[in-house]
Each structure stands twice: as structure tokens, then as C-alpha cells.
């Protein structure tokens, strides 16, 4: 079974040379730490920066240079700043190659719910709805089940949706799955996790074809 870091490590393998990547808050943010350093990748943040670098050294924080999580950041040579309209032109116009974000629920149709729990304080969708509605390549990073042990991979989402039919791939603490017209196709098992365990934790249709390899990080 993977921890959050493990999920981020596995997703990092999906990041290819030449990709522009938008990382959501939480596990997705960690992905940046594990991308191979022999490939060129640029991270976009929807508040208006392309080419993000590491966090600044203490004392070098700049209130005018933050990411979408409002964290102070640095930029790399060749980075650019731009306004929110142009930032979402990048996203809506499908210029960002890969979007990685968290979810509360994913349905086998590719629907995703990650912004609102009825009855609880709703903070808002931020840029998530634009990202999921536009991106051609969306990977969801999440735990396979919620704190109550219930599956987050469902036949249908029970929570208000963020987007419909948009998720392509899911990496959880238990498995890597692809969203297909017939359901969640199991691609890889997390180390020492059995297909049966994954099946038990998946409420939506799980497609198991042939031998399912254990993932490598």
C-alpha cells in the first residue's frame, strides 16, 4: 500500500518530457519533487505563473510571487508571469498537457467530485472546474477509500460534480486505474496489495484483465 508520497512518486512517472503540468493542492503538489530530472517539464499555476521553481530560501520570500496554494515560490530562468485571463486561456485552450488533482469521488464514467459536501462549509471550486472541463489528460491522485473506509471509486458520484466524463487515470494508495467506457480498468497494484483488496475497495465496475503487475516507483 502506498502513502501520499508514494502516490506522488507513482504519478511523477506519468509526467513526460516537454509537458506543461498543473498541479492541484495536496498530494499533487508533491509530484513536482519526484519528476525525473533528465526531462524538461514546466509547472503552471493558475494564479499566473509558468516555470515555477522550488520554495524560496528563508528571507527571500516575495509576497508578489506565490502559487495557487498561496505559498511563496521562486521561478526558473525562462519563467513568465501573466494575468488570470491568459492563465485560463492556457488551461481552457488545452495548452497545459497534464492536470493532476485530488478528488473526493470519481465515477466509472470519469465524473469527478472534489469541491463540495452538502451541509458543510463550501470553500469553492477555485480553478478546478476549468481544469477538469478542459484538460485532455487528467490524473486524479487520491486515497482509494475515505476515512470511513468507503470506496471513492463509484458507479456514480454522490457528491455535487466538479466535471463530467473527464478523468482519464486514477492513482490511489492501492492501484493505478484507467477510466474506460466499461469501467475502471485495473492497470497496476500497489506493492503487496492484492487484486482482491482493490476489488473490495472499489464500488464502481472494476475491470481486471490478465495478470495485474505490481507498480514500480
Amino acid at each position: 500500500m502506498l502513502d501520499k508520497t508514494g502516490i506522488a512518486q507513482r504519478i511523477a512517472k506519468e509526467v513526460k518530457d516537454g509537458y506543461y503540468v498543473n498541479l492541484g493542492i495536496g498530494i499533487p503538489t508533491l509530484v513536482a519533487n519526484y519528476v525525473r530530472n533528465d526531462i524538461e517539464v514546466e509547472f503552471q499555476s493558475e494564479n499566473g505563473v509558468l516555470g515555477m521553481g522550488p520554495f524560496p530560501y528563508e528571507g527571500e520570500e516575495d509576497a508578489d510571487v506565490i502559487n495557487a496554494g498561496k505559498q511563496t515560490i521562486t521561478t526558473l530562468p525562462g519563467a513568465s508571469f501573466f494575468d488570470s485571463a491568459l492563465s485560463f486561456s492556457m488551461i481552457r485552450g488545452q495548452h497545459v498537457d497534464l492536470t493532476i488533482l485530488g478528488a473526493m469521488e470519481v465515477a466509472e464514467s470519469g465524473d469527478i467530485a472534489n469541491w463540495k459536501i452538502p451541509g458543510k462549509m463550501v470553500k469553492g471550486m477555485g480553478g478546478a472546474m476549468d481544469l477538469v472541463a478542459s484538460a485532455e489528460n487528467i490524473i486524479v491522485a487520491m486515497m482509494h477509500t475515505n476515512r470511513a473506509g468507503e470506496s471513492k471509486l463509484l458507479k456514480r458520484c454522490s457528491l455535487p460534480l466538479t466535471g463530467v466524463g473527464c478523468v482519464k487515470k486514477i492513482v490511489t494508495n492501492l492501484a493505478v486505474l484507467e477510466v474506460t467506457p466499461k469501467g475502471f480498468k485495473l492497470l497496476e497494484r500497489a506493492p503487496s496489495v492484492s487484486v482482491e483488496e482493490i476489488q473490495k475497495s472499489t464500488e464502481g465496475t472494476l475491470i481486471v484483465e490478465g495478470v495485474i503487475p505490481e507498480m514500480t516507483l
Partner: protein
Amino acid sequence: MINKKVANINEALQGVSNNMTFMLGGFGLSGIPENAIAELVNLGVKGLTCISNNAGVDDFGLGLLLQKRQIKKMISSYVGENEEFERQMLSGELDVELIPQGTLAERCRAAQAGIPAFYTPAGYGTEVAEGKETREFDGKMYVMEEAFKADFSFVKAWKGDSAGNLIFKGTARNFNPVMCGAAKITVAEVEELVPLGELDSNQIHIPGIFVQRIFQGEHYEKRIEQRTVRQRD
């Protein structure tokens, strides 16, 4: 050049009154019009509708207006990090309309550009699209969204000149440029008002035509919301 410089903050906010709709630049606490917000608190105008990506924190940014219960409605994409906001929202004192961030930016830009409506994929199939027209283009579904209408835009830039030309800095740019000219009156506050001609004509982010009033802010706190650093090796 047409002179947009006003003598002081009073003059900058002249005409502001109760129940108006404002656009306010900024993402989190970065690039917010600190001086205009402070003066709105001073003026005590109430019943405001604020179009702003976020709602500040308890004791800074739009949180200052929330504390005084001057805001009737927020139109934002994300409103976390604010307890007073949460209290007013849950008690029903505050009306909140949450919309996707890209749609928020584009509805400002549409107002600036004289585009009454456009189509976006964001929110299709979600409650954001409820009651809105949807439409298919090339096999994909989109939602029709309309330009915002607002009385004042309050924006904050890094540098500006008396002609109203603006340059922003880093990610403090965010929503500020797209809100310029998107309301009836745009009030720009800048960290530094430079002599006319000092800004490179080729590098102006927002030409002065989109700005009606400009002034140099007295003081900028520029508070950092999430100070995140790494250790030196």
C-alpha cells in the same frame, strides 16, 4: 496625455455608495487594493456586492469589510481561510456565489472587451450550469456565461503614471488587469507613481484608457498568506 491622477484617496473613491457592485483585484492577499479596501472600511458603505477571486482573511483584505458587515454578497471562486466569512455565510447574513476561477476571469475580461457573453466548458454538467444555457460545439458541451456588470473596479498595480498606464509585478498581476475597464469606473492604486514617459510604451500591461483614476498608495503591508521556505543546504 489625459491626466488620471487624483489628489488623494477621498477623491479616488468619490461616487462610491451603498449597494454598489465592486470588482477587486488580487489572488489570496497578493495584489489586493489595500488602500481602497481601507478607505471602503472608513467610508462605511454597506450592502456591497464584491466580485473578487477570494475573500481575504479574518483581519486583512476583504476580511476587513466582512468584519464590519459591509458586504451583502460575494462572487468568488474560493473563499476559505476566513472564519468570519464562514460564520456569516452559514448564518445566511452573507450571500455567496461561487463560480469557476477561469469563468470569473473571463467574465471580467468580457466586460472589459464589450463581449456580452461567451461559451466555456467549465462547469458543464455541474450545479454551476443550472439555469444557464448550454450548447454543443464540435461535439463538446459548453455553458454560456455573461459579462459582469459593476460600478467600480479597484485594482492594484506595481507602477503607474498619470496617464493611467499600469505595470503589475509577478503573480500580484492576477485579476487586476482584466478588471481594468470592466466596471463603470476603474480606480487604480500603485506602489509607485512614476513620471509620464518613464514606463516603456512597449511594456505597459494596461493602457491608461482602461483606468479613470490613479493614485499612489500610502502604505502597502503586502502580507504573505502561506510563507513557505526551504532550508539552505
